[in-house]
């Protein structure tokens, strides 16, 4: 998956909404079109010696790297949305990229989702998980790949 894999047009509708109680009123919040990735790709970066999963969004934004234990996250400077996950495969002791990397990424996303302070960050992480799921597990004619 070295090339960008574009998510389907109706991708945002597949991301489950979040139900919030605001001021005693039940409100359903759907993912913003700006928090919903338009494409995803993942590959081993020889220079970084890390496995990098990247997400593309509408528009351009400056990002910054947030280093965690064995995993680094590239987040939007203003939006805090997830642009990339970098995995130190050696430190994680991962030899088989496909299965174990997916597991590591999935568990990191779940952990982030549980700790996300804002509804839009939670929805962004849901969208990101869904994009990964579609790119890796979905039927191939469901997605269209491009560079």
């Amino acid at each position, binding site marked *: 998956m070295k090339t960008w894999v574009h998510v389907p047009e109706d991708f945002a509708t597949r991301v489950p909404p979040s139900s919030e109680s*605001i001021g005693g009123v039940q409100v359903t919040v759907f993912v*913003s*079109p*700006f928090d919903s990735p338009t494409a995803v790709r993942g590959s081993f970066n020889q220079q970084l010696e890390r496995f990098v999963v990247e997400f593309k969004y509408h*528009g351009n934004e400056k990002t910054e790297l947030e280093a965690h234990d064995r995993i680094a996250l590239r987040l939007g400077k203003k939006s805090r949305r997830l642009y990339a996950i970098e995995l130190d495969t050696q430190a994680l002791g991962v030899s088989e990229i496909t299965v174990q990397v997916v597991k590591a990424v999935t568990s990191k996303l779940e952990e982030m989702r549980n700790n996300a302070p804002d*509804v839009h960050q939670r929805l962004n992480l849901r969208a990101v998980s869904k994009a990964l799921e579609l790119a890796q597990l979905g039927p191939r004619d469901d997605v269209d790949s491009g560079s």
Partner: protein
Amino acid sequence: MRNEWLRSWPYKALTLIHRAATVIVLLLAASLKADASTDMKTGFELVQATVLGWAQSQAATGIFAFTLLGGAAHLARRMVGSPGTWKAVHSILDYVQDQIFSLEPGTPLHQHRVTLFQYKKLALVRRRWPWSGWLIPKERSGHTTRRTKTVFCAPDSPQQPDGFAGLVWSTRGVVFLPGKDVAPVPQIQQHSAEGLQHEYCRSTFSDFRWLQRRLQHASGDQPRAFCGVPIEVEGARWGVLVVDSTGERIEESARSQLEFSAKALSTILEGVLV
């Protein structure tokens, strides 16, 4: 919301100032390289030398002042936004209105509005501190009810939103009100009971005093259904797009139109400074 005339004239004037300042800076810079010797033969050459001498003596101050003026005019022009940009924005809002509500024949379109609010850190509003952060109406669909002055507070905390626009701003997601399985917002008019008005305010996150002021001037039904999407430009929050209707609900199928429009507006508004 300013009308088209008030938008286009400042833009044209600022463009003229910017261009004139650029030309003057170039002429002053060029004058420094010219020869202003006084051994002239004709009267015309004498005048030319005098003007050149004066330009050279003023060049340093002039270049500095006109560069500043040109820069300020350019910045102000970007803040105002070109009339073409705002025409395109208006077309998108009309498109959203048409796409979402065209399925209800016979209903006047002014009862279904699409409004673009821009976030401003500072605004002179009586209710709170000027630096509270505000959502100011910038453009609205259609040709009627465009002179709205309704401004909403835009705090970052989603627990106390001010109006539906404030709710969309603070949640940063696509929101429909009332939601799919939630009871409809009560229908209220000028003489509706106070209890009903309170219920309306609770359901729509509106301020009761604001609603009463609004009802004094409004004759028809108040909006009962809303949907909105945040607008981002280059990763930064720019404002919100709000659709409101006097109908009972807005179908969730409107989401695709909202998402498409939000992305289109984001691209168009890249040239307009916050």
